[in-house]
């Protein structure tokens, strides 16, 4: 049962990522792309957690945690760029 559930969940997350990628490519505006990238980071966390379950290993926890903790910095930087041009001022 878990096998199947994992397979489906993997599929859904990857599908979600593909949709995000579509938005990233499609745009049409920069905020859209940044939003898509941000979402990709978040969905990647899910993917990694799933992978941890499926491989019965906790060694990937830090990767997911790290994305949660610092992944948003990229998005903030892009947003700040759009607002102010200069992200460190």
């Amino acid at each position, binding site marked *: 049962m878990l096998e199947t559930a994992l397979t489906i969940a993997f599929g*859904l997350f990857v599908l979600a990522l593909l949709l995000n990628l579509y938005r990233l490519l499609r745009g049409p505006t920069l905020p859209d792309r940044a939003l898509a990238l941000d*979402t990709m980071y*978040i969905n990647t*966390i899910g993917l990694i957690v799933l992978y941890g379950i499926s491989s019965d290993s906790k060694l990937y926890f830090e990767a997911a945690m790290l994305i*949660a903790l610092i992944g948003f910095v990229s998005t903030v930087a892009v947003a700040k760029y759009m*607002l102010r041009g200069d992200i460190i001022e």
Partner: protein
Amino acid sequence: MNEIVEFLVSAFILVGAVFALVGSIGLVRLSDFYLRLHGPTKASTLGVGGTILGSLLFFSWQERALQLQEVLIVLFLFITAPVSAHMLAKAAMHRNLKRREDTRGGPWKQ
């Protein structure tokens, strides 16, 4: 593995995955940026949240001890995700992005 646990784990991760997908569908489907902004910030948080609940349960069962470590992922995400959304909203307003015509109220000038 206990079937109930297995069922619960499966359910959590599936719910999580579905919400993640819904959020991403929203990102594709909705018609203006401000609307799209809602999809990921909500559904993704719950999507990841669900998955992590599954994971918690799974590892706690596997190791026969409460494994709460992964709560931190959700915690960190809850701290950081609103900031991204906020900053992107500001950026969008600054750029004067088009919004659905029937939107009530309007963005502020940045």
